[in-house]
């Protein structure tokens, strides 16, 4: 239960932090996150 609360607090902080970012900063982060799942396969190319 404690772990869930900690995760929820961290997630909440991240959401607030994200909301304060400028539009272009959000675009930069979104682009990186959208490609993150491919990093492992790309490492083998």
């Amino acid at each position, binding site marked *: 239960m404690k772990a869930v609360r900690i995760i929820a607090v961290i997630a909440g902080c991240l959401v607030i932090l994200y909301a304060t970012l400028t539009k*272009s*900063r959000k*675009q*930069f982060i979104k682009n990186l996150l959208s490609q993150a799942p*491919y*990093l492992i*396969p*790309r*490492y083998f190319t």
Partner: protein
Amino acid sequence: MSDYDVIVIGAGIGGLCAGALLAHQGRKVLVLEQAERVGGCCSTYELNGYRIDIGASIIEFPQVINWAFERMGTTFRKEVDLIAVDPTFTARLHDGTEITFPIDLEKTKEEIRKLAPEDVRGWEAYAKEMDGFLKAALDGFFVTPARSLWDVCKLFAKTPSLLKYGSLFFGSYEGVLRKHLKNEKLLEALSFHSFYCGLPPAILPGHFSMIPYAEHAGIYYARGGMIGIPLGFQKCGQRKGMEVRLNATVEKVLVENRTAKAVKLSDGTVISAKVIVSDINSKTFYTEMIDQNNLSWLARAGYKSYRYSMATPMIYLCLDYAPPLKDHHTLMTVPMQQMNDYWFDQYEKGRFPAEQFGILSWTTRSDPSLAPAGHHIIAVTLAPGPYRLVGTTWDKEKETIKQNVIKYLESKYLPGLRDHIVHADFSTPVDFERRLRSPEGAIYALRQDLTNAMMFRPSAKSKQIKRLYLVGASTHPGGGVPTVTASAMIASDLIAQYES
């Protein structure tokens, strides 16, 4: 017994430079090119007495290209007749304001003082940061392999000063410029350079913000057209016996026991070699020219995941008058946020409006011999063009788009233009794909964000197939004439190390 020591697929800058360097190692080299001329995106074609550049219109970082020539006992200037271009560019902003950036940094500072006095200090701070970063990057980053985490650790160990600039890699181009500069007009003037690396200011990694500064070290044009640079490498290679075969399309690379053995041409000819070097888009190469059974499932997923870089539609204008421009490069700009919005709201949604931003490359300004006396050429690099247009195709819309863009250029930048056009040619992303065998017309091969960089970009020495190497824009360090030259140096070093 193989027919050749090395076969290079593709006679772009990377392929010819690698071929020449390997010939100078004493290897018997054959370069195969599907087109009728060499150079790929850095090439020139002739039309009724006009010599027109297909893509690249200047070169930056001449010292990197010079390193390659020096390895062959010569210099860039000895092999290619270079014309210094000064100023670096003039930006014509959306509201009509103009600002010029001379090569001389002091003169540039004076120009900035006129437009944005509040940003003179910021410009100095930007210049200082970029100067330090460039010194560190040129020391190792450009010509050091980055195939694995270990390679990247070694790269930073070799040039620890790069660590000081680590934050540049994790920020955006826009972020770095905004850290130093506040004036929106000055930011607008410096924004378009992000497309030199294929992405808008919001998502291009911050270390590329060095480009507007790096131009102050000198930019050059090759007399007779940009094809002079690949021809320079070709001459160097041919002096050591390198063969170049044009109109020779490679269909497959033949692999046995996970080792590259030969290439099969479209006419059925098979030519064997001890080492194969590919200078074509690595995503296309691995997904279409290699039997997929030779690749691990993880690598197959990796190759498929790459996104092609942007395509750049270009209009080539042959004119019977001197256009009302000042410099070799005039940037047609819009505010930085508008460039970002264009990317997300237009380009990514398959739209291509007539209201444009981009570059007017007045090549006859630097080299009048490119056109008949009194005539001129402007190569217009337009905003990124989506490969797939929503609801239509480039072939259907080509003429309409060309006329609309010419009308727009006339109204905003080149008054009277239509009365002086002798010939206007339009190369769409689809045309680039057909002419250069560049998938989706991608000019920088693959996107150049952090998730496609260094160890996450296809490796110069194949991780899947022995005796197979990559050069060109789709391997480290990425797209652009100097970086592609660097990739050839990296591959030739690796071949010298592993294929003795």
